[in-house]
């Protein structure tokens, strides 16, 4: 009792509307890089010298996920400086790492707050933290808790044990859904430049760009950044680019069919769409590897070596054919 909470800020376990709005904005890429909080040692409830110490990153969305699962508990939350990045990505970069952990223990004076020498880290932090190294350097034993914050209560209530599936990353349709807005926003940053260039070429009278061109590209972007991620396990193929090509092809065929039924019979235009739209979708879907929870570097490199030259060739050929088609 007495140890708490002079200089340590107390963290609430309930989220405000502002907290939820902050998470929502970050999902859309708004202020995502500034969605962080001050590193340090925080009190949840009224912790004492025997209370468990949880460790997390200083991405605010992460801290929110952790604290909303700690209702009614008394413990310490040590927030590492990961530059506002979530645990897994920060661990991959090494900012959620042994070095930061050890120095944060010193900086927060944790040794004076608790008499035990145990830290509970999120399992996904293990990519950046070496448990035995941290123990050697700090005297604290690192215990890896669950992957997901929602399983922390189970972990704490069951003598720090977990069910097997709590140690596994998932990638449910909901997990994928919440990742799509930022995929779409980042893709649109690129596409708006493309549309701008097309509009200028059109305004200058150099190329008679049609509305169908914009809509076709928009559709392919949507396929690659939203439909492919959402339907990921049900789309044939293992390589993401292949999956993206499939969804893009579905879109291209639909677009061509629609134009044909409306009386358009520019076969070169159709052919160019069949090249451009699947390639674009393949490219954006391939970028979703970075958001997925199961792709390896070796795999991505192998996939890119095969897919990237094809994508570039098909895009180039498609664009040239489309240009020719304007004038025939």
């Amino acid at each position, binding site marked *: 009792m007495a140890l708490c909470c002079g200089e340590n800020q107390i963290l609430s376990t309930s989220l405000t509307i502002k907290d939820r709005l902050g998470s929502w904005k970050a999902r859309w890429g708004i202020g*995502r*890089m500034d969605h962080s909080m001050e590193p340090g040692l925080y009190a949840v409830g009224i912790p004492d010298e025997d209370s468990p110490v949880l460790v997390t990153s200083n991405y605010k969305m992460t801290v929110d996920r952790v604290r909303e699962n700690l209702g009614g508990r008394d413990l310490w939350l040590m927030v590492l400086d990961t*530059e*506002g*990045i979530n645990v897994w*990505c920060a*661990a*991959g*970069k090494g900012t959620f790492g042994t070095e930061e952990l050890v120095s944060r223990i010193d900086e927060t004076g944790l040794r004076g707050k608790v008499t035990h020498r145990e830290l509970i880290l999120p*399992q*996904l932090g*293990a*990519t*950046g*933290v*070496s*448990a*035995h190294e941290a123990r050697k350097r700090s005297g604290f034993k690192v215990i*890896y808790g669950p*992957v997901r914050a929602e399983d922390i209560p189970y972990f704490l209530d069951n003598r720090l044990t977990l069910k*097997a599936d709590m*140690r*596994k*990353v998932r*990638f449910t349709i909901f997990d994928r859904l919440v990742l799509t807005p930022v995929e779409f926003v*980042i893709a649109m940053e690129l596409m708006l430049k493309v549309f701008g260039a097309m509009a200028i070429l059109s305004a200058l009278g150099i190329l008679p760009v049609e509305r169908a061109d914009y809509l076709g590209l928009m559709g392919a972007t949507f396929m690659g950044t939203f439909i492919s991620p959402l339907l*990921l*396990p049900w789309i044939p193929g*293992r*390589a*993401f680019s292949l999956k993206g090509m499939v969804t893009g092809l579905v879109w291209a065929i639909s677009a061509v069919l629609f134009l044909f039924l409306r009386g358009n019979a520019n076969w070169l235009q159709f052919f160019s769409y069949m090249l451009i739209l699947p390639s674009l979708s393949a490219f954006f879907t*391939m*970028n979703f*590897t*970075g*958001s*997925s*929870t*199961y*792709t*390896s*570097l*070796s*795999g*991505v*490199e*192998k*996939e*890119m070596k095969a897919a990237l030259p094809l994508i570039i060739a098909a895009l180039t050929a498609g664009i040239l054919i489309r240009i020719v088609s304007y004038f025939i």
Partner: protein
Amino acid sequence: MGFKYLKGVAALKLDRDKCIGCGMCGTVCPHAVFTISDNKARINDIDLCMECGACSMNCPVSALTVRKGVGCAYAVLMGMFSGNKDGEGPSCGGSGCCG
């Protein structure tokens, strides 16, 4: 639903002679690549490995080696342009994704 990426690419190696069967790799692996039996770790299914490096990082006897890196096309693409530090895989960074 089990997700599986490309077959036969993961660069993960386990030296069973060094392994002391502490089970740390099984604890930290987010894809349940390892099982521990007869006081030794065993690789169940190497195609489930995403090369995150958590196992090698936490193996106290260095029995595990893995080519650690992020399976992110954007990072690989950026790495191609900016050039990787020797032997090191691409990492998240810069603008765009993981910051």
